[in-house]
């Protein structure tokens, strides 16, 4: 591999593009220059911090440290999912069911990858585990938040229609099955877009990164295909799990519609 190492000067050159954005905002009076600069600074600080953290974690090769990092990432993803719908669950249910879905989707797909395709030694080698979890959580977050927002939004909007069905003796499941399907479909759209655009409209980030780092394109492509499959599986699991859990929480043993469990 002949990766070209970037120097601080190289990064400073690229940063002038951000300064250009800020100048643009000043000239056109977009009022965005502050936000652009703050966001760029945040990005740099966050990534450098992560870089150092990963360096430490990679050097430790300690399963416990790896687990802690993975858990923190997963909880942040769950919080983002739970925060998405306009009306939120009372108590810790929103965070709880999001965390359950994130855990399920991530464990299954990362576990599958580490046990079959990638098989690092040891299997918990943070270089693989943390990186995989990071990529997969992105898709889980997308699919889970769209699905949860879909379920909660639709149930709130369609309250009269759902209760009219319940009042005529319909099961809760039957009265909400269409909403459920729509929510899961929404959750799966991003990964479908991502897969159909891959390589034609966009060069996926991982693949581009590996090619820039000097890897043979075909090797990079194989990695990308594996990852896309993992992301597709994780998206599906997250979307379905979140939708089912949310529906379950919005009804009870008498199959009522319990909108009182939302804020």
């Amino acid at each position: 591999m002949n990766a070209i190492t970037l120097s601080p000067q190289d990064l400073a050159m690229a940063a002038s593009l951000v300064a250009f954005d800020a100048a643009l905002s000043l000239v056109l009076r977009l009022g965005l220059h502050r936000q652009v600069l703050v966001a760029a600074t945040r990005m740099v600080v966050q990534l450098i911090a992560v870089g150092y953290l990963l360096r430490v974690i990679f050097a430790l090769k300690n399963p416990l440290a790896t687990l802690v990092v993975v858990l923190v990432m997963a909880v942040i993803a769950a919080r983002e999912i739970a925060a998405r719908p306009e009306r939120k669950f009372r108590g810790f249910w929103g965070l709880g069911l999001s965390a359950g879905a994130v855990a399920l989707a991530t464990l299954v797909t990362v576990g599958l990858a580490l046990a079959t395709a990638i098989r690092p030694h040891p299997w918990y080698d943070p270089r693989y585990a943390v990186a995989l979890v990071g990529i997969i959580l992105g898709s889980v977050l997308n699919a889970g938040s769209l699905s949860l927002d879909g379920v909660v939004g639709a149930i709130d909007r369609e309250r009269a229609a759902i209760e009219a069905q319940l009042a005529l003796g319909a099961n809760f499941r039957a009265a909400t099955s269409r909403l459920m399907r729509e929510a899961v479909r929404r959750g799966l759209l991003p990964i479908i877009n991502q897969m159909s655009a891959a390589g034609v409209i966009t060069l996926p980030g991982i693949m581009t990164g590996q090619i820039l780092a000097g890897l043979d394109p075909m090797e990079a492509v194989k990695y990308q295909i594996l990852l896309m499959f993992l992301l597709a599986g994780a998206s599906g699991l997250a979307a379905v799990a979140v939708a089912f859990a949310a529906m379950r929480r919005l009804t009870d043993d008498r199959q009522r519609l319990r909108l009182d469990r939302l804020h």
Partner: protein
Amino acid sequence: MSEQSDVSKPAPRLSLRGVRSALAGPFDLELLAGTCLAVSGASGAGKSLLLRMIADLDPSTGEVRLDGVLRETMGGPSWRRKACYVAAESGWWRDTPCEHFAPEHREAGRAFAMRLGVREGAFDEEVRRLSTGERQRLALVRALVLDPPVLLLDEPTGPLDPESVERVEAVLAERLAAGTTIILVSHDPSQAKRMGADRRLMRNRRLEPLS
């Protein structure tokens, strides 16, 4: 209670004992088969809450019985199929009214719609093109075709013109004569009189007798 008195006094069709939620009650009621109770009261007094609690759409404590059988001995959907609630604001989940009926109920549904004075053709039009009154009557028809022993009607004639009101009342009177028990939320005292209904007033989320 002895066997004798059980026979002489039949179990009421619908009975409520100490039914309450955090929002309303307690309510105690006994309604015989084929009788009608009209509940009036200011908006927000708790009239809809009462009907929703009986239908088990809102959680409540206390005893609700149908022909002496406790509500909790059957599942929520089976209960609601027997104590059918028709909301003041009708809900729809498909394109045309017809699609809201099971195939075996469509013919009866059309017949009821005609009797209630719903414009011919409305049954197969898109729901969003129908008038509020048409939607309200068709929502009532959805419950009527199920022929439940108890009907819980929330302002069934609210948005209707006098002629349609008369038609709805005629159909409801027929159901009463056939033994259906009806609880009706109505602001019209003369309607209760025409239906031969007992009247109660809902005030501060409690039921009071109307003198």
